[in-house]
């Protein structure tokens, strides 16, 4: 328990890697901006890394009122110990009411470590964030039980209230170059012996990064595609649409596509303008991952596939016939 009145403002943690920001931090600023306005408090970006002043400026242009930065060589790569110490020190200095973190692997590594040290509540993988009218607390809503149920969670007596949000669930706001704000530099140093893990080697296996979270159009295939060979048909369609290729878990399990392409509860959460679900039956775990898609179109040979229940337009048919026909039609139209 703590004196709630001592805590104010909303903080968004902006994750960086080698000085480059991850998009999810800016997406969170866009979600938090109206909440800060509603509460009449400041929205503050917190950036920890190496050579990150430009990132702090960009955060202000994406909606933050001001920024706090912690810059140092010990923050070039993420480590649990250094980042936890930095965030906890800042929270104790400034006492924010709310702290939001992107649910990347690093964010989900750091978040619980921080909330546990501060003995406060953390809600993971939120898909909606509101202010509870009665109490003024943040109402964090998230899917649970594999997406079968939504739960709204609050942290009434402890501060800061903490939550993580997966990349791609929300969209970035517009970049407003005219926005200005104060950037405060905080000195927090972590001795080498306090960092108990060492990055020995980084291996990048994928030459071309798969950006499903940021994609406008996604062509995704499921078990119904039938084989790795048949994914060439989907690639053809993705090419004419300039789309990113996605897939369901069954496809990764079968070894037809690498995990980086997986959409759904155990893969990426996506919010494209247009989502093609091809040979995807529509298990609840997959539907949870595409809940943010504006338009869903489905192609499936099973007329009772649950995917048709969430599709704006669908074709019951053989995808090996329908997909090439779609590709040809769109190609002709664009020519």
């Amino acid at each position: 328990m703590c004196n709630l009145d001592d805590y104010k403002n909303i903080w968004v943690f902006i994750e960086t890697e080698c000085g480059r920001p991850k998009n999810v931090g800016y997406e969170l600023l866009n979600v938090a901006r109206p909440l800060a306005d509603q509460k009449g408090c400041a929205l503050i970006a917190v950036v920890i890394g190496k050579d990150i002043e430009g990132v702090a400026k960009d955060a202000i242009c994406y909606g933050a009122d001001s920024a706090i930065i912690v810059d140092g060589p010990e923050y070039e790569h993420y480590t649990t110990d250094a980042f936890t110490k930095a965030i906890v020190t800042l929270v104790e200095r400034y006492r924010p009411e709310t702290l939001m973190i992107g649910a990347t692997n690093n964010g989900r590594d750091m978040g619980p470590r921080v909330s546990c040290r501060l003995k406060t509540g953390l809600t993971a993988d939120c898909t909606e964030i509101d202010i509870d009218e009665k109490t003024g607390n943040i109402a964090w809503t998230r899917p649970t039980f594999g997406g079968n149920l939504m739960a709204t969670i609050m942290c009434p007596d402890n501060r800061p209230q903490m939550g993580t949000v997966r990349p791609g669930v929300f969209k970035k706001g517009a970049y407003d170059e005219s926005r200005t704000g104060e950037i405060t530099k905080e000195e927090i140093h972590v001795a080498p012996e306090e960092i108990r893990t060492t990055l020995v080697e980084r291996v990048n296996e994928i030459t071309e990064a798969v950006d499903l979270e940021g994609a406008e159009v996604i062509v995704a295939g499921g078990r119904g595609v039938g084989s790795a060979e048949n994914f060439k048909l989907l690639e053809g369609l993705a090419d004419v649409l300039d789309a990113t290729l996605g897939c369901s878990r069954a496809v990764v399990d079968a070894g037809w596509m690498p995990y980086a392409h997986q959409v759904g509860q155990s893969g990426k959460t996506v919010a494209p303008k247009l989502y093609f679900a091809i040979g995807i039956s529509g298990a609840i775990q997959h539907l949870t991952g595409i809940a943010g898609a504006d338009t869903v179109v489905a192609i499936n040979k099973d007329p009772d596939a649950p995917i048709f229940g969430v599709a704006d337009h669908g074709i019951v048919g053989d995808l090996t016939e329908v997909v090439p026909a779609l590709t040809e039609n769109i190609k002709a139209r664009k020519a």
Partner: protein
Amino acid sequence: MNICVCIKQVPDTNEIKVDPVTHTLIRKGVPSIVNPFDMYAQEVGVRLKEKSGGRLVVISMGPPQAAQALRSCLAVGADAAYLISSRSFGGSDTLATSYILSESIKAVEEKEGARFDLILCGKQATDGDTAQVGPEIAEHLDLPQVTYALDIIEKDGGIQVKREQDAGYDMIATKLPAVVTVVKLPYEPRYPTLKTRMGAKKKEIPVLTEAEIPTIDLAMCGLKGSPTRVKKTYSPVREKHGVKISGKDPVQAAGEMVEFLADAKLL
């Protein structure tokens, strides 16, 4: 290497349905399984033990029936199992759960007469999906942690962990003791045989309540020790009533879909 694996019994979320009237989970008839990520954690642990010796102990916090989950781990390589179960632990969120587990780990170390070098968890449980309990156990015990492990190798008296990242993996080195959380692995957990199943059946699974965990502070357990509150639950509404073309020639059907997309200015 002495290893402790923390597991959770979960409902098979593929089999879960939501009651359309009450918006609550229908758990009746839904099979219970060991959280799949925990089975990968156990498999990594058993492989490490087979290589370098030592003992592998599996623990779980839950109701009495969670003993079944522990027994299934005894049948695939665990040497001993402890069930942590008490009414005082009910209603715990991740902070309280991880506190109880960390205090239990200390109590089990006393009973086993040895310290754990490595504590393994699945990256998350498929019912709650929070991925918080592993790192929180590490924090309570003040240990280093590596999350999202694809593999663990013993090296120079410590471990190197292959940690999943966006475009590939990182090799992370750390000293022991440490906490590691494990993702889906390139290989599947082993199956029990009739013999190992019979052996597991004969083993006793001690139950630890607060009486057997002398250092535990009950104010940090259950609802009292949980900063978060579930305010409401509801089933997600996803019904759209879109167009569904059925029984048409593929070329014609594709043409209609393209028309729809063009009208919606999506091409």
